[in-house]
Structures are given as C-alpha cells and as structure tokens.
C-alpha cells in the first residue's frame, strides 16, 4: 500500500510529506514502547502508529528502518521532533483517530503486522 493511500484511509494531516509518496509500505507496527518496536519489528519499510509524539519515536524509527510515523489522537509533534524526522527522511502524519481505529482501518485495507503474524 502506498503512503498516499494510508493518508486517505486515516483521514490524516501530513506534517512531513514522504519524499516519494508512492513509497510502498509493507507492514505496520503499533506501540508506545520503543524496545518492543525494536524487538518485534522484523520487516523493513514499515509504518509506525504511536501515541509517543517525541524525538525518541523518530530516533527509534530510524534505527528500525521505519519509513513513516503516524501520531494518533491528534497529537502534534513539536518542532524538534519534526526537524529530526526531516533530517532522517521519515514522513510524518497526524490523525484524529484512536490507535484502535487507525489499526483496524489499515488491517481491513489489507496491511499486516510488522511482526510477520497473520500474513
């Protein structure tokens, strides 16, 4: 699924666009715990859905080869967080939806977990 399609499905606001909005997203991780993300994500080119709107999420995303981050519940990242994501070429979107609904919509649209389960 492309980044653009995900933006539409989540009715999200783009904070930092992907340098390539046809970027293919292959799987989704959803957590607020950074070590869980590093432990369980086994796939590159993932999307991270999180309520953790800070620089820790961006740094961890970079290490885990995550291409785009979604902040739920309309949490806006601060300037420092956006600037770090810009430097790392990580796209950023914000959705009003809860994490449950955001995950549910993407699952229904065919995306699966970055852990590799339920493929």
């Amino acid at each position: 699924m492309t980044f653009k399609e995900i933006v539409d499905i989540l009715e999200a606001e783009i904070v930092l666009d992907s340098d390539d909005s046809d970027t293919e997203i292959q799987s989704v991780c959803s957590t607020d715990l950074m070590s869980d993300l590093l432990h369980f994500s086994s796939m590159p080119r993932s999307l991270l859905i999180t309520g953790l709107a800070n620089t820790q999420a961006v740094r961890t995303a970079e290490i885990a080869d995550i291409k785009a981050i979604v902040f739920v519940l309309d949490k806006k990242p601060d300037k420092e967080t956006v600037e770090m994501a810009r430097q790392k070429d990580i796209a950023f979107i914000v959705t009003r939806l809860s994490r449950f609904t955001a995950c549910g919509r993407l699952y229904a649209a065919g995306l699966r977990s970055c852990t590799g389960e339920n493929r």
Partner: protein
Amino acid sequence: MSSGRAIEGSFHLTGGDFTNAGAASSELKSILTNLGISLAIVRRAAIATFEAEMNVIIHAVAGVMYYQVTADSIKVILNDMGPGIPDIGLAMQEGYSTAPDWIREMGWGAGMGLPNMKKNSDEFKVDSVVGEGTTVEIVIRIKEESP
C-alpha cells in the same frame, strides 16, 4: 570491505542527555551503511548498539561507545560509569526493568533492551561492578555474501 585494516572510533555518552540519545548509534549506522555492509547486518548492529546506548543514557552517569569494524566483524564495546547491575541474569530477563515512570513515558523501560542486544548479536557479554559501572560487548559477524 577489501582492506584488512580495521575501522574504529568512539563516541562519548552522557547519562540523562535525551536530546542526543541515539545519536551515536545513528552515526555508527551510517558508517556501517557507507562501508557497504548488508542491510540486514547493519540493522542488527544498529538495534543492538542503540539499546546499549540508551541504557547508558537511562541508567548510567556517563560512558563511551567504542567500535571496531573489520572485514569479518563489527565489535562495539560500551563502558559506563554508573550504578552497575547487581544481578545480570535477572536484568537479562524479558520485561525486567528498574526504569522509573518518567522514563516509561518517554517510550523506554520495557525491559527488552538487554534481550534485544543478545538477540541481535553473535557474541554478547555483560560485565558489571555494582557502584562502579557496566561494560557491554557486542560482536556481529559479517557474513561475506557470495559473489
């Protein structure tokens, strides 16, 4: 890498400095990528060193991350001054954490750091003296891809 020489360097880490937390591992990740090491191996090295770096930031006062890359392996040693780990076996258990709530609010303290380092390393060692500090050694072998 064709050269037999090792590439090495080090980074200084400051406990509690969450602004720069992860910067050393991020830089090491790009050094490894630029050396042409395969993505899967770079990813393992990045995850293991990042967790080790974060532990110094979260649990210790100050530390040094030293790396050495040869044609065969990536070796990273993290040496810190800090409280040390009284029971390494317990600390290695998945989910065990002494991190306070404010650390958890920043996304850390899941107790998966040491298990993550071990999972992503080919050799992994922790040495610690309570009241003095901790040394973590991570070795990841670089398997030559067949031409």
